[in-house]
Structure formats: C-alpha cells, structure tokens
C-alpha cells in the first residue's frame, strides 16, 4: 500500500489502534498461547485493566504519577544543527527526559497500579538494556513491592550501570544464562517463574509482546507518547510531520508513538536492529526477515529456522536484541500502515555520536538506530525538506561504557 499523501485523511480499519478483536487478535497476530496455569491470571489482568482504564480515579492517579513523579509531558525538541546537517527538519520526542531515563516508566507506572489493584505483593520483569528493569524496580520501590528482574548474562555484562541501579532500588537481578543469554531468554525465565508464582506475583512485561492482554495494555500505557507528540508537533509546526520514526525492539516506544499518528498522513517508520547487516543473519530485524510464528504467548513475526526453532538475534543494543516483534507491529506491516527498516550496529553508533555532537543529547543505543537510519536516508527515501519526528526513547548514560570500549577509549 502506498503511503497516503500529505494531508489526506486515513480511514482506519477497526483493528488498527483500537482494541484487539477476539482473543487479543490484531488481524491474524496476537493471541494467548500460554501454559494453562497462566490463563486465569491473564483473564484477571484483562478484567482489571478494563475496569481501571475507564475509571476516572485510576486515570487521575496514573496521570498524577506521570506528571509529578515521571515528569510528563516530555518536550518535543527542535534540532537546529542536526536539521541543517541532514537537510530535513528533525524534531525529537524526549522520552530520555523522563524519570529513570526512558519511555519504559510510562508502562510500568500503569502496571504497578494494576498490581496494587489486584492485591499482589511481588512483581517480576525481564529486561534487556536494563531500562525496563530499572523502571520496574523504581515503581516497586515507590509502591513497596518485592521485585525480581530477569536479565541475560550477556546483557548484565554490557549494561552494568543499570544492574547496579536496580540493586540500589532494592530489586534482585537474576542472571539468565540459557540460550543466547539475552532478552529472549530473560522472558523465558520470567515466564517460568510466573508459572510457579502467578497467584501472588504480577509479571510486568516491558514491551508490546507476550500473551493477550499485554500487547494491548502496554500500548495503551505508551500511547501517551504519541498523543502528546501529535499535539506538540501541531503547536510547533502547524501540522503533522511527514515522517514519524521510532526504534523497534519489542516495539513499545514505536507503537506508543505510532498510535498517536495513525489517523494522520504521516509515514510511520519502525527502525529495527540491522546488526552486522541483514545478509549476515546477525541482526534483530524480525519484521524484515522474520516469518509468522508463536513465541512468548503470541503469534507474530519471529526469526526462526526451517524447523521453527527460534534463532538468536544480534544487536549492539541490548534493548533491540530480540528475534521477534509485538503482534500489532506485524499487523501494521501487513496492512502497510507502517514501514519497517533497519540500521546496522555501525549506523547506530554513528547516530549516537552525531546526536551528541550536533545537539548535546546523548541517546541510548536503541533510539540511536532511529537517528542512524535518518542520517542514512535523509535526502534519499526521506526527501530533503521533510519534517521528521523521531522518538528519542531513552538516554545514553547506560551505554557510555560500551561505546567508549568500542571507540577504543578507556574510562576512569
């Protein structure tokens, strides 16, 4: 499907941006493929969310937390020097400025309130980059909940700062060494824990993945990013951007952003991890190179071999190092409403440095992929003079050590 022309009104198919149909379906994707033990808890969570999401009291409490604890709304920043460099007008939605430093806090505060409503005392989470783990540990401290975070051994190594932050916040970080020892395996172990602990524990999933109702709930908690950004863009530029760009791991910052722009004429672009390049097989480009399958409770697009064994992803950034994508993205791709592209490790690294040098903003390596893609495509598939909104999903402090090492610097 061709992207709609600027200013053209888009009629939404009912599944896009709305409630999933049937048992959590976005088109043919989604669903609830879990061990029987978990089914009642997922039903309870869905019922709790349905009640909460239409409750003025819940909305007010969440709104208060988002404003006075997390620091929302986050600004949209006009990038003058970067725009000049690239020949396109770049606006950044600044999720890096939230408390804890990434968009993950939006979802976690919502799920923490649900946890309390369900009367559960313990939360578990998986984390890749550590940002979701830090956000969950933060909310657990705030709400007085016990918190354990599953994290791949490889990621513990490359995101050491966030491991320490979680521990400071009173959470226990549980290393996962099975499989590729990254995000996919951390989700496996979190699910295994939950099968044993589901009666007293809430699994606070960090992206728009997992069994129904998670992809829907997490998207609803993240749509504030896109809803704010749309109004901020209109105020600043008098219209909607031509392109809306976000990095895609599981896809929560991207879906949160896209949802706010589904009814505009903006082209929606999700940037996946290109790793060492798509031909190398070492990447995390699940929409570009994945095929339909079922993992972690949902039907979506996954990187897998000819027998249906899931392949290990590779990315410079722990947060995008996942061989799948949330089901709603698979549907947006199938409908042609969003496009999915990639930036390689090297392009992400270049984007990381470019934003630091031109704007004085050090991005996390995950959104550095979105910057890196834009730097490559400005003046090409993104025509000169376009207005581009990029969601800067998090800040780069956590990556400083890793990047220094890669650039051959030694710190401290």
């Amino acid at each position: 499907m061709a992207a709609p022309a600027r200013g053209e009104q888009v009629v939404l198919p009912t599944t896009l941006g709305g409630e999933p149909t049937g048992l959590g379906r976005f088109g043919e994707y989604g669903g609830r493929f879990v061990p029987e033990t978990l089914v009642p808890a997922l039903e309870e969570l869905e019922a709790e969310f349905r009640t909460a999401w239409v409750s003025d009291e819940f909305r007010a409490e969440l709104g208060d937390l988002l404003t006075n604890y997390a620091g929302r709304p986050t600004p949209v920043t006009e990038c003058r020097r970067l725009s000049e460099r690239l020949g396109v007008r770049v606006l950044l939605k600044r999720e890096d400025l939230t408390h804890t430093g990434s968009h993950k806090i939006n979802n976690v505060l919502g799920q923490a309130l649900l946890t309390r409503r369900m009367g559960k005392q313990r939360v578990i989470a998986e984390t890749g980059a550590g940002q979701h783990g830090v956000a969950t540990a933060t909310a657990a401290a705030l709400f007085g909940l016990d918190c354990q975070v599953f994290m791949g051994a490889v990621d513990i190594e490359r995101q050491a700062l966030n491991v320490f932050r979680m521990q400071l916040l009173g959470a226990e970080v549980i290393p996962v060494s099975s499989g590729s020892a990254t995000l996919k395996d951390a989700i496996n172990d979190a699910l295994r824990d939950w099968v044993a602990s589901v009666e007293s524990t809430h699994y606070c999933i960090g992206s728009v993945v997992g069994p129904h109702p998670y992809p829907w709930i997490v998207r609803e908690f993240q749509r504030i990013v896109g809803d704010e950004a749309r109004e901020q863009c209109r105020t600043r530029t008098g219209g909607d951007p031509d392109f809306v760009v976000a990095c895609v791991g599981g896809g929560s910052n991207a879906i949160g952003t896209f949802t706010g722009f589904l009814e505009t004429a903006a082209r929606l672009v999700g940037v996946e991890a290109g790793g060492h390049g798509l031909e190398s097989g070492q990447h995390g480009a699940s929409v570009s190179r994945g095929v339909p399958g079922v993992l972690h409770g949902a039907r979506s697009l996954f990187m897998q071999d000819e027998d249906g064994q899931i392949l290990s992803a590779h990315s410079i950034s722990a947060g995008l190092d996942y061989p799948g994508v949330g089901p709603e993205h698979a549907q947006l791709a199938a409908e042609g409403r969003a496009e999915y592209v990639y930036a390689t490790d090297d392009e992400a690294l270049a984007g990381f440095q470019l934003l630091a040098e031109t704007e004085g903003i050090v991005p996390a390596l995950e959104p550095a992929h979105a910057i890196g893609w834009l730097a490559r495509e400005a003046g090409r598939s993104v025509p000169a003079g376009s207005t581009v909104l990029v969601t800067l999903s998090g800040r780069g402090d956590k990556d400083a050590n890793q990047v220094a090492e890669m650039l051959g610097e030694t710190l401290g």
Partner: protein
Amino acid sequence: MNLETHLRARRAEGRTLLVPYVTGGLGAGWLDVVRAVAAAGADAIEIGIPFSDPVMDGATIQEASQRALDLDATPAAIIADAASLDVDIPLVVMTYYNPVQHAGHQRFASSLAESGIDAAIVPDLPLDELDGWGEAADAAGIETVLLAAPTTTDERLRAICERSRGFVYGVALMGVTGERRALAAQAGEMGRRCKAVTDKPVLLGVGISTPEQACEAAESADGVIVGSALVRRLLQGGGPEAAATFVSELRSALDVRDAARASGDPT
C-alpha cells in the same frame, strides 16, 4: 493404537498407569532408550520434540532439549525415526506450538500418524487456542491431550476434560517441569478435581520424581507421568539400561501398591 482405549483397558485391570518422558534425539541411542522404557513397564511413552524456547520446562529438560538440538535433532527426523519403534504401547509426542504451526497443522498431524504416533501434548496451546491444530489432529486420528492446572477454574476444568483426548494431564504443582524433593501439596487436589468431572484417564505429571512420589500421586489419579527424573539419568550418561532400571523401580512400586489395593489392604 488408540491411547484412550489402551489406557482405559489397563486401568480396568487395576493397574496404575505409568507414562515416562524421553527427549527425542538425545544421542544416537534414544530409540533404544524408548524401547527399554517400554519393556520396563511403561503404559505409554512421551517423546519430547525439542524446542529452542521451552517455557514449561525446568533446567533438566531445557538442557536435554538444547543438547538434542546441538546434535542436530529436528522434529521431522525424530518423527520419522519413531516409525521404527516396534513397541506395543501408544506413543505421545510432547512439543511446543511453534514447530507444529511452522510445519503446518495437517502436515504435522499426518506425519505423526504415518509414524504410528498416537497422540500429542502441546503445553503452550491452551483450550482457547486449540482450534486449527485440534481439528487437524482429530482428522488425522491424533489424540490431543490437554493440561489442567491447579489454577484452572471449575468451569474451565470441565471444558478441558471434555475436549481432552487420550487422557487428562493434571499439572501436579504450580511451576514448570523438574524434580522436587516432595510431592507438591496441590497434587492430590488436582487429581481429585479432574476425577470428579471426567471418567477419562487422569494422569498427574510435573514434579513427580521418585517411586514414593509416584505412589503418593496415584492416590488421587489413574497414573503418573515422570520426565525430569528419567531425563537427568540420561544426561548423566545413562543409556537404555539405566533408563530401564529406573522405570522398573517406578513400575515395581506401583505394582506393589496395585496388588495391595486389589487385596483390599489399605497401604
């Protein structure tokens, strides 16, 4: 062979049912392990088809699955090799949904049937998502065994027992597969709840690791499934003899219990 008919017949003889689990493709001799387990007194055998991300499995079966995959085990090869098993008890595959849907429901079901496999357990395919596979399996004569868990509500439990074929798999604890020091407190209740709503054979599995635990679990159900305790012996280097020895121990303990029951002795 029809799994449910076979298990009902054995149950009618007053026998406590024993279904051991063996990871398919775990070493070149895995078919001999299955034969040895059959000869040692199993009433049916579960053959695990390894999956890269087995979320219902604990450390032992995870390791066995990974080892089999490292040895280039594939679902197609395991199923094809199983055709050479001339055992006289039903065979059940246990795998996850992704390899099944990846092969295609009908293709997977007919490949099982062609290899003489009677039934399938797919633990991440609950009742509500059963449709496509369930129909294809029924059409190919493959019985799909459903799991019931301690958290399952009474209403769901009735529907699960109604839809399950072969037997009803009662999950005997809150958690994933793996050996446990003692039988979980939930086991008895799980068995009783299933038995109250179905006359299909009810087997308890997950966390049943020793002859004593098997006998204790059999108090509330028609039989037991034993996986990790057997697979650990294989991972530790045991072959067909070690597997047969362990399964014989389980069988003997259950036989003693069955004999005592038959003579009205309430041990």
